[in-house]
């Protein structure tokens, strides 16, 4: 795994030391909250509804066992014994005390982790396919690219005060698991005539004005990546709207001025930058490449699987690995009725142990709020499964109804307009029978507690957005969204549902799908695309109207 350099280490330690001083000055009264707030946000510290929250960066979702174990230690020592994995592949601690945060940051630095650029109008933590380096369909591991962008964008003086936050995602596989079309910049690694390069997508994003990204460059040679990204950022910095927060993302610039205008500006800027660009120093390229070399694969005899529980687990929670004897295991953080994305410190330690013993010391956090063991030899599956089961981590529901994304919503988030977590818990309980979930098949439900759409509801098959209407929580449904390479924004179904009506409405939608599907193989999304919203609308609202009548 990639190891931080001495430069990274010194930089992070210096930032912790600086923040320690800033916290002391806030506590002594030397800094007002107005002065302190931007400083704490630059170090990942938010003030939420009931407490502070520390958001820790997990670059491109990759962790090793020691890092996961340290997160468990931090959860026990300074928080309430758990952490929340987010849709940005990060982890959040929900209950830190202000005076403890510098110590938490020091403990993170001990394992080359930090909370820098997890907030503010800068280039945020770069995300990547959570199966990177392992998936059979991968053209190339996207993490060296993500790491190069991390190094380039960290504390980049020109891009520290962008018009708004800026999110970059990279995938190395044609099956897009990194939602690249819903990012400010999405990079898809491709090959043209055997030459590696990138398809560059810009202007995607969810939130208040959801948009699918547009192709800015259909083939960017690999060596041009940094000057080209720099050109995009420079154009955005210069032309992005700073007059209106809601119109400041690059997607609005592209929407208002058109992708062609953007392209000609970027091309002009690129020509200028490229002339002065000497290329990424070879030792940096080598160092990054060396950090992502595949592990030394082992050989072992694989016994036939007889345990029906393990068989179900393999069906849903594993994915094809590029090595035939290996598999990718997704650990569900969506136990029935549990909070999506939460793991206790004990569970984190189990995952750390399993990574070290059975996954070449690698873990990944997925944007779907699960944790991945990317390299498990099939011979080790029974041992991995048993250990997960003992830790309450073996729910065989990946990709099914209860594998729900839910943002923290009004249980934690100060910006929320409604709660998300209890809705996810209720849906999960309603479908607690895993056989029933398997019968329904692949279905992505995603819930956001406000228009900011951290729960990615726009790209869900069934999206749920929590709003306030007339002083109560109200939930709006969108259908037909898709976060893959065929990205689509879901369509709004109609008026919102009250908190006690939303889960029955979702159940009616799923029942309608089961009636409508042509074969058990036709998925919810395929059925929706085939028949359109009308029958789903009728199913969702009929009973409400009948009750009202």
């Amino acid at each position, binding site marked *: 795994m990639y190891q931080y350099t001495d430069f990274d280490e010194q930089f992070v330690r210096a930032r912790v030391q600086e923040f320690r001083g800033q916290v002391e000055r*806030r*506590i002594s*009264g030397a800094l*007002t*909250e107005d002065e302190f707030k931007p400083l704490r946000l630059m170090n990942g510290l938010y*003030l*939420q*509804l*009931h*407490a*502070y929250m520390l958001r820790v960066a997990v670059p491109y979702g990759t962790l090793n066992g020691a890092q996961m174990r340290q997160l468990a230690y931090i959860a026990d020592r300074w928080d*309430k014994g758990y952490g929340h994995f987010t849709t940005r592949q990060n982890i959040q601690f*929900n209950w*830190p*005390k*202000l*005076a403890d945060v510098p110590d938490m940051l020091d403990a993170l630095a001990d394992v080359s982790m930090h909370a820098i650029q997890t907030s503010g109008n800068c280039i945020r933590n770069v995300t990547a396919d959570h199966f990177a380096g392992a998936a059979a369909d991968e053209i190339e591991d996207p993490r060296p690219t993500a790491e190069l962008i991390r190094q380039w964008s960290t504390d980049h003086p020109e891009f520290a005060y962008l018009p708004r936050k800026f999110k970059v995602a990279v995938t190395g596989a044609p099956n897009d698991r990194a939602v690249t079309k819903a990012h400010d910049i999405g990079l898809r690694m491709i090959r043209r005539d055997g030459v590696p390069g990138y398809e560059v997508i810009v202007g995607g994003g969810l939130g208040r004005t959801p948009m699918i990204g547009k192709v800015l460059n259909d083939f960017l040679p690999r060596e041009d990546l940094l000057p080209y990204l720099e050109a995009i950022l420079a154009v955005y910095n210069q032309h992005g709207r700073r007059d209106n927060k809601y119109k400041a993302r690059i997607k609005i610039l592209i929407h208002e001025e058109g992708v062609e205008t953007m392209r000609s500006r970027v091309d002009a800027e690129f020509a200028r930058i490229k002339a002065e660009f000497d290329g990424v120093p070879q030792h940096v390229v080598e160092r990054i490449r060396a950090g992502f070399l595949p592990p030394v694969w082992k050989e072992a005899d694989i016994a036939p699987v007889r345990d029906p529980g393990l068989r179900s687990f393999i069906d849903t929670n594993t994915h094809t690995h590029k090595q035939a004897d290996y598999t990718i295991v997704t650990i569900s953080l969506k136990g029935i009725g549990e*909070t999506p994305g939460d793991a206790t410190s004990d569970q984190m330690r189990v995952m750390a142990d399993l990574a070290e013993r059975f996954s070449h010391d690698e873990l990944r956090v997925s944007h779907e709020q699960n944790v991945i063991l990317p390299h498990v030899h099939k011979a080790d599956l029974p041992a991995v499964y048993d250990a997960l089961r003992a830790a309450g981590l073996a729910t065989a529901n990946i990709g099914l109804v209860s594998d729900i994304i839910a943002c923290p919503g*009004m*249980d*934690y988030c100060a910006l*929320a307009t409604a*709660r998300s*977590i*209890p809705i996810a*818990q209720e849906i999960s309980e309603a479908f607690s029978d895993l056989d029933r979930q398997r019968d329904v098949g692949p279905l992505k439900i995603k819930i956001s507690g406000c228009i900011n759409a951290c729960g990615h509801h726009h790209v869900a098959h069934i999206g749920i957005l929590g709003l*306030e209407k007339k*002083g*109560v*929580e109200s939930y709006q449904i969108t259908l037909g969204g898709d976060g893959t390479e065929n990205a689509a924004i879901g369509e709004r179904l109609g008026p919102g549902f009250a908190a006690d009506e939303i889960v029955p409405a979702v159940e009616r939608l799923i029942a309608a799908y089961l009636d409508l599907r042509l074969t058990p193989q036709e998925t919810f999304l395929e059925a929706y695309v085939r028949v359109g919203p009308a029958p789903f609308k009728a199913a969702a609202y009929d009973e409400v109207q009948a009750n009202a009548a």
Partner: protein
Amino acid sequence: MPKSFTPQIVTANDLMLGDVIYLTEGGWSRRHGDALVARSASEAQEMLATAQAQALKIVGPYLADTVLDDAGRPAPVHFREAFRTRGPSNYDHGKQADLRSV
């Protein structure tokens, strides 16, 4: 008191712990029911100013509407404020949950 005025309280977050607090007669409390109630706009502004002057202890004070129960104690009006009195709904470990055992 003008008829249209809805009684208000001042709430904020504690600087050190970040938890929800309410302005009282003599300081701050974790309990909504202890909050000092403003019965006019000018009282509300005065209370807010008092809170803002204590920036060493608290963060982000604001006025929130309240209703008085039969005993004259304030209770939250908006559901967000109700959640703030209780802590998160997924775990019973909000700061307010801790108060039950006090």
